[in-house]
Every structure is written in C-alpha cells, then in structure tokens.
C-alpha cells in the first residue's frame, strides 16, 4: 500500500474550505484583513492550490470558485478609480473581507462552544434509568411532525438494500400463492411447508406464504400438522 499521498492529504485537510485557507494565509503573512493585498494573496492562494493538485488532493469546487473571485477582484482593482468620478466606487475587496470576518467569527464561536462543559466529555448524566413507571395511556405526548418524517425515512433507508430488486421481479399476491399451493398439494397430497418457499426467498415471500396457508386453513382446504416441536410443518389435503 502506498500511504504517502494519504499522509499529505490528512495534513492539507486542516483547511475546511477556501475561506479557512485564506484566513490562514492572511494570518501567516501577518496581513491586515481590512486591507488585503490582493495580488499577493492571490498568488499565495494559487500556489497552494497548485501544490494540492501536485499532491493529487481532490479539491472541492469551492476552492476554484474563490480563486476565480480573487482573480476578478484583482482585475477590478486595476480599473482606475477616476473612471466615473461622480459615483462612489466600492472597494472590490469588501464582500470577500466581510465573508472572511464573518467566517472568522464563527470559527471563534466554534472554539467557545468547544470550551463549554460538554456532555459525555466533561460531564455525565445519570447512567441508569429508574424503573418506577406509572401506567400511562394519556395523550400527554411531546412530539413534532418532522420526527415522524425522520422515523419514516430511516425505515425507508433500512428497507432499501434487501428487497427492492426482488420486489419488482416477483410481486406475487396471496391469491396467486394460494393457487400455487393448491396445485402442488393436489398432486403431492402432502407437502412440507418450507418447500413452498422459492429457492431464494425474501421476508415478503414468507409473509405471503404464511398468509396463504392461514387462509387455506381457515377455509379448511388444507390440514396442517407438526409432528414434533420445531419439526417440519406438513400440509395435507383433508380426507
């Protein structure tokens, strides 16, 4: 295994994004964030991106967006301020500076959050639950609809993998399964339950088969017997 590029990657990922990288460059070069030397910082930024590319680090597209922004600002800085004297020309760097300041604030805020007493890191609640419970059938329930949606989504996610392929291939109805069983049992006279299932069966096949068998039992069209606990279940045509 070649692990070297991986190591670099880990180091470079300390930058959470282009703004983080820019802040780092400003800090490292002791620049004034309110008066960013755009040419200089653009050069530094692009050098960094180049380095990451050399190291085969996959760059988030946002890094390139900010690179383009920097180049654009650099270009606008070159337009002489006297072009339209009556209009107040806005500093092209302003929006970027504001974004950087804003981002800096939240980086600080994240640090402050991190200094709070965090549950399960600095402080722990009671681990065990009391078992004194009143039988409670009241409607005194705290809930919101999004919790419901999230619960439903997690069901869908869980349901994914297993079945969908099978589902579309063999969506056999209970009625169909009843017909199958009757056909086979009328020929064989007796049959073991398990053999009613297709070779590769899903939970749905089991459910449908059981439903079909139960229905046939209810209609007294078959008889069912189990000779020993956990033994095979035999289905018969009633005499």
């Amino acid at each position: 295994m070649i692990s070297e590029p991986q190591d670099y990657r880990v180091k470079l990922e300390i930058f959470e994004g282009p703004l983080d990288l820019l802040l780092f460059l400003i800090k490292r070069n002791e620049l004034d964030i309110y008066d960013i030397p755009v040419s200089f910082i653009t050069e530094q930024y692009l050098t960094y991106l180049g380095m990451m590319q050399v190291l085969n680090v996959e760059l988030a597209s946002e890094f390139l967006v900010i690179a383009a922004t920097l180049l654009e600002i650099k270009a606008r800085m070159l337009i002489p301020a006297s072009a339209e004297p009556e209009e107040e020309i806005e500093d092209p760097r302003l929006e970027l500076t504001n974004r950087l300041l804003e981002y800096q604030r939240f980086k600080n805020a994240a640090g402050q959050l991190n200094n709070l007493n965090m549950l399960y890191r600095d402080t722990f609640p009671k681990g065990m639950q009391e078992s004194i419970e009143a039988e409670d059938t009241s409607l005194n329930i705290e809930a919101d609809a999004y919790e419901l949606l999230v619960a439903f989504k997690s069901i869908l996610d869980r349901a994914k993998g297993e079945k969908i392929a099978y589902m579309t291939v063999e969506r056999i109805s209970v009625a169909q399964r009843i017909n199958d069983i009757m056909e086979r049992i009328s020929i064989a006279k007796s049959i073991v339950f398990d053999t009613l299932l297709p070779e590769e069966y899903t939970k749905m096949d089991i459910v449908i088969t059981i439903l079909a068998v139960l229905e046939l039992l209810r209609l007294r069209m078959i008889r069912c017997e189990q000779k020993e606990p956990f033994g095979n279940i035999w289905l018969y045509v009633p005499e």
Partner: protein
Amino acid sequence: METEKLIAIIETLIFASEKPLKVKYIEQVMSVIDLGELTIPGLLETLKAGYASEESGIELVEVAEGWQFRTKPQFAEWIKRLNTVRPSKLSAPAMETLAIVAYRQPITRAEIDYVRGVDSGGVIKTLLDKRLIKIIGKKELPGRPLVYGTTQEFLEVFSLKDISALPNLQDIKQMSSAEEELERNQTELPLPASEPTDEE
C-alpha cells in the same frame, strides 16, 4: 489523595454507569491510585452510609450485579405523580410504527411487521391505547385483516391541520447528501400485500 476525593470518584463512577457497577471495575479504574489502608468495599460502605443517614432522597444499594443509586422507596409515589404530569416522548419503536401507519395508511399489522422486520403487536397496542391510531376497517384479503390509520388525536399531538399537512420526503431531501437516492426510492416502500397502498 484524601478519602473524600476517593469517595467522590466512586460516587461519580456509579452515578454515570449504565448498569449496576461491579466492585472489580471500580478497582480497575482506581488501580492507579495508592489507597494505602483503604479498600474499595470499605469506601463504598462509607459512601452508602453517607446517603443513608443524610436527608437525601437517594440511596446507594448493592444489587446482585453491583452498586447503583436509586431513589428511596418512600418517594415512589412522587415519581409516579411526575410520570403522569410530564409529557412523555414516544419510544423509537412507537415513533417508527406510527410513521409507517401515518404515511402508508390504511395498513395491516402484517404489513407493519414486515416493514419493521419485527413483531409490532405491543407497539400497536400502545399506539391504540394512546389513541394515536385506530382500526379503520378490514382489508379485502384472505383473513380480512384489520387495517389501521391515524386519529384526530394524532393530528392534534403533531400539530397538523390535516393529514395532508404531513411533511413529505422531498422536505428532507436536502438533509442528506445522497439526494438522488431518496428520490428514486420514495415510492418503493416494500410491502407484503399484493395491493400496495399507493395513495398520494
């Protein structure tokens, strides 16, 4: 280390432990400390006596598997009162089952069991008791199984104007980075019934 500090450590260990805490685990954790003449069982007794004598509502008890804090039995009535006063949260299985009923009603128990992959009898009973779901009829299937749906109370608890106000899956699309997957799968809740309830 002073005895008080040692006792406080034991106290927090038992408090934070999810199960009654065995003496041997306490000994393992504290093996880095030189206890001198003291022993863990001895310290436990001191801690226990402190809680017992005090005006505290809590006691330290030794149960079969270890040590744990419990409320003193004479306060049980108050705790029962609390359980009726305070709104409770639905358990995860209850929420899950309720979600299936809400989004796929009318639905049979077999279908719910199938989707959840476990028996849902107990949970369905709880939801019926809490009047969040109700029996809305029988399905035209062999055995004429009961089908369930949500109630008026359900709408009230979840602050929904009507059932159409349920948030839909598109709403959480942006929650996940794998957005396309969701879109593809959202109609595909596999149900055992031959006639999947494809309302919407």
